[in-house]
């Protein structure tokens, strides 16, 4: 079952939608604009009636897995239930209808929400101030590093290196490089935790920051975090917290207390704003007071009971996106925090840890467990034990898809061969976890009896495994001028060579 492209469904005879007429006298563009300012031919957008459009997108929707229907055991992604009341809150006309350049007097409710959300996030992660401007996690990482760079510059210190563990998410080194830093990798030890000896050898007066997530991407808590913080601070560097794994310990402990100076959070992970098939998210950054002067502008400040946007901040790193961030996502996250409260958030993290350890226990004899437990909110297993049967982590992932589960994160972190990273979250029932474990057992058993069957998975989805190598070859041919097929977009067949 596949669906034609809207462009392929298009029929030139379809009437355009009925839209208002101008109802006032005024010129047409062609009457007043010079000819070369005008478009020479209309864009080839599809022409479809509304019934056809709605059916097209309904069919596309049916081709997707989603958290509303499927369990997403996606390590490092925190795919939890997206409360529907959040959507209702963001759609309130008092929020959705606000123009960003209205007078401050007329948006006090919106600024109050931002202020309260900042306070709540400060309480959860243990920092002094938070910027809500970054649009996503990677954007938040980069924002934090820009602040750290500005901090060192303000002290006339030339620090050019950022340390990143080998188990880190790819956005960490990318964000560091885009902030102008050299990336220095720090190795993990055999227990899956950062090697203090290696860290010691890499720290220097050139070090601007260490980027860390805790628990780390293996789901393990860095037990020596207080020592790590002391080592980093002793060299004059800053400690940055990647908030990907914040769901592990709300109400249990706080990055600020561990010694982190800057903390980014993913509202689309921990605070239930939906992933939207890849965004929009929101990536606020919290900082200790010494970094606060460098926060992006504007900040929200309270002055005599009135909330204002403060643009006059001479040490600020500037603006990292237009307006005030992904406000609609801020509304959703704030709604979630209100509903959960301090008690609910604490229980959520405890349940997340409980569920991960429970699921780990259920599958520990089926897959390899490269590191000792207990884990925090996620664990990393390895399909290395299926290697001799010719079955890989990817095959396990695809076989799970055929059993109506989304796949775990595979081949990440890079330090574990054939990694299968599982994060169940607090919103999956014990029954779901049991049936997932059962599916893993069946797949592992099938690896012995019918490995080819696994390599052919998935069989029950709209398409089977797609040949990305062949696709890349066709794209190359296009980019090198050897083919007219762009592969990356639809193109009218009648247009001929470009």
């Amino acid at each position, binding site marked *: 079952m596949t669906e034609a492209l809207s462009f392929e469904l298009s029929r030139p005879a379809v009437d355009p939608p009925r839209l208002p007429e101008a109802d006032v006298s005024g010129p047409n563009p062609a009457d007043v604009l010079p000819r070369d300012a005008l478009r020479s031919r209309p*864009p080839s957008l599809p022409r479809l009636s509304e019934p056809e459009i709605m059916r097209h997108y309904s069919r596309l929707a049916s081709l997707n897995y989603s958290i509303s229907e499927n369990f997403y055991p996606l390590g490092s992604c925190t795919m939890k239930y997206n409360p529907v009341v959040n959507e209702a809150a963001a759609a309130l006309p008092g929020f959705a209808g606000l123009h960003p350049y209205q007078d401050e007097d007329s948006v006090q409710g919106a600024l109050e929400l931002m202020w309260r959300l900042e306070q709540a996030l400060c309480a959860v992660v243990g920092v002094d101030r938070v910027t809500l401007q970054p*649009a*996503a996690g990677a954007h938040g990482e980069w924002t934090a590093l820009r602040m750290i760079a500005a901090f060192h510059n303000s002290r006339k210190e030339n620090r050019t290196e950022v340390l990143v563990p080998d188990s880190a998410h790819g*956005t960490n080194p*990318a964000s560091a490089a885009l902030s102008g830093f050299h990336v220095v990798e720090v190795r993990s030890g055999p227990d899956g935790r950062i090697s203090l000896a290696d860290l010691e050898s890499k720290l220097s007066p050139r070090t601007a920051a260490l980027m860390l997530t805790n628990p780390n991407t293996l789901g393990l808590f860095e037990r020596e975090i207080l020592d790590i913080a002391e080592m980093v601070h002793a060299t004059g560097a800053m400690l940055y917290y990647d908030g990907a794994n914040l769901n592990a310990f709300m*109400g249990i402990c706080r990055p600020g207390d561990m010694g982190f100076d800057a903390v980014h959070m993913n509202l689309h992970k921990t605070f239930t704003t*939906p992933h939207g098939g890849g965004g*929009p998210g929101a990536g606020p950054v919290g900082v200790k007071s010494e970094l606060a002067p460098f926060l992006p502008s504007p900040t929200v400040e309270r002055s005599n009971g009135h909330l204002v946007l403060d643009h006059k901040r001479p040490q600020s790193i500037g603006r*990292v996106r237009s*307006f005030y961030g992904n406000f609609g996502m801020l509304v959703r996250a704030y709604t979630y925090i209100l509903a959960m409260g301090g008690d609910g958030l604490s229980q959520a993290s405890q349940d997340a840890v409980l569920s991960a350890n429970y699921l780990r226990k259920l599958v520990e004899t089926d897959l390899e467990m490269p590191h000792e437990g207990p884990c925090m909110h996620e664990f990393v297993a390895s399909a290395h034990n299926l290697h001799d049967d010719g079955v890989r982590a990817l095959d396990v992932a695809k076989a799970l898809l055929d059993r109506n589960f989304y796949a775990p994160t595979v081949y990440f972190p890079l330090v574990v061969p054939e990694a299968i990273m599982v994060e169940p979250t607090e919103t999956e029932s014990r029954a779901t976890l049991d049936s997932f474990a059962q599916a893993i057992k069946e797949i592992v058993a099938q690896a012995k009896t019918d490995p080819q069957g696994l390599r052919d998975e998935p069989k029950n989805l709209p398409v089977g495994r797609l040949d990305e190598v062949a696709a890349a070859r066709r794209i190359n041919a296009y980019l090198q001028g050897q083919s007219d097929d762009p592969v990356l977009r639809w193109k009218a067949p009648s247009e001929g060579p470009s």
Partner: protein
Amino acid sequence: MPYLVHSPEDRAAMLETIGVRSMDDLLVDIPQSLRLDGLQLPDGLSELETMAQVSALAGRNRVYPDRLTFRGGGVYRRFIPAAVAAVTSKPEFYTAYTPYQAEASQGTLQAIFEYQSLIAELTALDVSNASLYDGATAVAEAAMMAHVHTGRNEVIVSGYVHPEYVQVLKAFGDGRGIKVRKDGEPNKKTAAVIFQQPDFLGLLVDPRAITTAAHDAGALAIACVDPISLAILAPPGEYGADIAVGEGQQLGLAPSFGGPHVGFIACKKDLVRKLPGRLVGIAHDARGRRGFVLALAAREQHIRREKATSNICTNHSLCALAAAVYLTYMGPYGLRQVAEVSFKRAHNLAERLAALPGWERAFPERQFVNEFPLRVPKAPAVLRKLSRKGILGGLEVGRWFRELKGVVTFTCTEVNDARALDELVEALRS
């Protein structure tokens, strides 16, 4: 508690299966000195109480009716077909993850592929990516592409580009050692010339002249464009711009106090490998069935790490879906109708406003589409008066440009009906 699924009995049974006595046994790796006893936050609320609190905050904001909103400056009121929300509120779309498992994500992947195709058509360029955060970061990402492509360290911002876009560009540039220069001739240090069409004031620039000057200096031309204006204005591909970027809010997204919206970016073929973020392409399975996959991932952070073209991971997929539904609903002629109605009404309004005593067109020699600058005597008092009458008047742009003190830009679209124009003019006359 809301959204939690385990009962106390479940928890006890799960601990027993794990083989530990209490949660504390699972948290042994956390140093005791770090352990908290809960959060300093109020306890949770029922849904009824939650919505009461959130609604009370929403109620403290003033929302102007669409038809009486004449303020733009990068965020515009437009007619949004009901089809847009009907599609984006499908949980299969909004609660799906990033489409890394292609076979289980064909709906999202195909929708993004269609979005890319629509943006490429609209801009008349070869390839569009899957989306960026907003217009501002799209400008900054385009400048980074030009920097990498040319190996040069300076970008020129030509004319009145959205001031917040320039601020974001500077913040991005600071990290990469890229200087941002305001106006002036491009030279051999210039990686790109960036201009906005129509510009921040709503006025048309001469994109052909700017593009030619950039190319003559070996620099790229980056056009920041209004997507709806492209139904009538020459698209970047027609005048030879290398990269087109812009803000897609007008394509079916609510103002929402500035976000989430969507940044778009499209480029010529020879720059595709330098595009930031995700790209969806066509692939086939073993049975020859067509499907869609994330393509050219070797540019991206999860593969290339510190050598990636950008750090972007999560983008604005759902907003791109909204834009795709909007553009598909409108089609080429619906989009043109929207642009032409806005054009006519804006020109009608401009004439009537410029005729008010003491009011005059700023830059009367320049053309505009549906946003235009006026010199307005006692502008703050005028805007306050309009506000008292329930009208969100134009935007004072002097806060960003000292030389434009007293200049107010008004915007007019298909939502400002003929009667709304009369109401605005009457309110100003009274």
